């Protein structure tokens, strides 16, 4: 039986497992997100070959372009790690720099996706063109929505820090947002592999 362990943050309660409720909650939520994206990836795998004489992965994807935006999203995770390190070291200014950088890199990724989609549409690939395109757009759009929500959270963290609400002692929220951000990044790596690389390769 775990003894009452005081969590690192003074305002949080003692918990049975020793992890804060918020952090545990984020992990549990991420568990459900796995099924959320899993169902969409499964649908894509079923429909990747059904292109209805329309665009196929081979004809429409621009792997170099998407590789660059993937790299940018990966770098944003690095930014997140650095932001967390900064806040845990008490360096608020460095924290704000890196959290904004993370948000900016995420925003760049999203812009890249938006551009990519406009190119696809111009080339005759719309949501309703085929099961392949439907599955593709649904999956990548939901992922993009998750990135957008993440950016909102990152910018909010920046604003909260500006208002003095985030300190070295009260920094777990940064860790929890980081958990979410890294998860969204990992999902993208999976998407990039399963949706882009493998069908084309």
């Amino acid at each position, binding site marked *: 039986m775990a003894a009452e362990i005081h969590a690192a943050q003074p305002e949080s309660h003692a918990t049975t497992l020793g992890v804060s409720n918020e952090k545990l909650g984020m992990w549990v939520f991420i568990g459900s997100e796995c099924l959320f994206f899993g169902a969409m990836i499964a649908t894509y795998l079923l429909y990747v070959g059904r292109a209805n004489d329309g665009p196929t992965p081979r004809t429409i994807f621009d792997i170099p372009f998407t590789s660059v935006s993937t790299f940018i999203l990966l770098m944003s995770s690095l930014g997140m790690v650095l932001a967390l390190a900064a806040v845990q070291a008490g360096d608020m200014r460095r924290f704000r720099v890196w959290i904004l950088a993370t948000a900016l890199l995420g925003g760049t990724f999203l812009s890249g996706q938006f551009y990519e989609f406009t190119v696809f549409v111009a080339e005759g690939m719309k949501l309703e063109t085929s099961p392949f395109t*439907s599955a593709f757009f*649904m999956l990548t759009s939901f992922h993009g929505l998750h990135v957008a929500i993440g950016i909102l959270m990152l910018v909010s963290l920046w604003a909260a820090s500006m208002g003095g609400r985030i300190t070295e002692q009260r920094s777990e929220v940064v860790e929890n947002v980081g958990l979410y951000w890294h998860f969204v990044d990992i999902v993208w790596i999976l998407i990039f592999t399963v949706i882009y690389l493998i069908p084309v390769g």
Partner: protein
Amino acid sequence: MTAIAGKQRTRPQPRRIYARPVATTGFWSWFTTIDHKRIGILYGVTATTFFVIGGIEALLIRTQLVAPNGQILDENLYNQIFTMHGLTMIFFAVMPLSSAFFNYLLPLMIGAKDVAFPRLNAFSYWVFLASGLFLYSSIFFSGMPDGGWFNYAPLNFFGPDPGGLHSGSTQAAAQIHQARMLYYSLGLQIAGIASLASAVNFIVTILNMRAPGMTLMRMPVFVWMTFVTSFLLLFAMPVIAIALWQLMLQVRYGAPFFDPGAGGDPILWQHMFWLFGHPEVYILILPAFGIVSEIIPTFARKPIFGYAAMVFAGIAIGFLGWGVWAHHMFTVGLGPVANTAFSLTTMLIAVPTGVKIFNWIGTLWGGHLRFRTPMLFAIGLVGMFTIGGLSGVTHAVVPHDTQQQDTYYIVAHFHYVLFGGAIFGLFGGLYYWWPKIFGWMLDDRIGKVHFWLMLIGFNLAFGPMHILGLHGMPRRIWRYDAGMGWDLWNLVSTIGAFVIAASIVIFFANVAISRSRRIEAGNDPWDARTLEWLTTSPPPADNFKEVPVVASRDELWHRKYAGEDGTQPVRVPAGAAQNHDDHDDHDGHGEHHPLPSYYPTITALGMPIAAYGMFFEGPGQIILLTIGAAVMLFGIFGWVFEPSAE
């Protein structure tokens, strides 16, 4: 609020647009409450209301089918009514009624002051209410969804009148159908968010907020069932969410997910739906299993027989429940190999389920059985669920299931497990925990009349359906011809339905009469075994004056009775030396009393607003979506920046 001397406020004063609500009593306090007990009551009242609505829908169905070629409802209305009956009972009656019990009891049973995220808890309730109101608002517009609760493709995008011959034109038919499908998909999406939030909340609560000494294997079986159910919700809701999004994109924007004419596969919908749908039925029954696992030991005056087996059987059902989904698809043509595999897994899942039945009987065996109303309902569940479980085993026999599937035999099966199982269990729970929640007793004699009438009506209503199905009556038909040999049993079934209705009226009469009599309950009117009976009836705002320290399973029982396991215990005189040391929660930590909040309610409101936007095009859509999103964002930001306790 306890002030800790010397503790500085390190955070800046939050800026507020309006003052934070502080009231915990009065009418308006119900809108801002974050107290799990009051949220539980809100769930209970709302779910009971929807149960009555669903029951009226059932009576309409049964009245239409009382005789051949009924004229009470036409095809269009009938299809809406049976669809809404299923949706209402599953999503707006049984699930939230279970949630009412989770909400009220979970913290009490594990010795906690509240759930892990009280405002998220409130949010779940308001979202649930919003989803029910949203779905039912369809009555005033396009009419209610009419494709069945399972809403198979291609019908779900094709519509029942593609030629527009009934509606007047293809455009009119398409518009009506699209609108009904939007109510269906968006309504369930919103409801799903409520369930998902609750699941996260309960899992974290159970893992992280147990009283000192409450190991996992000392938790009441009800808490374990809550735990397993929450994991099922956590993983099943995302799958149906995806299916519903796909349906919405298909219906609204023509994305060919399920359209075989455009390369899609209608079977994909069935797989996704039942991957959710089968765990869903365990979500519906496990809470009731948990409830009777608390009631029977109390009224048998001995512990649950085989606690570990009960826990592990529940976990096994949770796992195995993911491997049986295609037994809803035995006639779809998946092929002999797939059909065999799912036949075997379906038979397998009968084993842990049977174990539970035997363990309940083992609990009765050798006890001193007191047949108060909760106990009657609990024993009723054991008996009736057995029947439903047995018919379930016959479904696993695939070649014969091709005769049973889509007939009234199936309707009989799931009503035996969902009504004879879940509803009986939930009513048992109502009678059992009513004194704890409200502080006064429900009349036991009236309760018994309710039980017997309900038992008789239930068996009259659903027993004959086994026969009707085997005699060739399919499901979901608005009428049937004379000369099919179905007349007698349909008549009996309808009579049974009205007997059930009478028993529900008696229940409400019981509530009214008992309330006027107000017989005080006291802390522990049943001489029970678990922690919630340690505190007052009703409990104080933070549940326990002193946080209990737990030394064993059935902690309360062991404080009242001493003796070796396997022997007859002796009553410990009140006030005698106890070997527990409950303590005040003043150990230098700071009291955190979560305060009421507007924000969860506001955030929940944004969802139906955005959902209504999907019915429009152009500026109307953008405006509604924007307003809905703005309301949600405002609610979320207010919530995040508002401290949970002050």
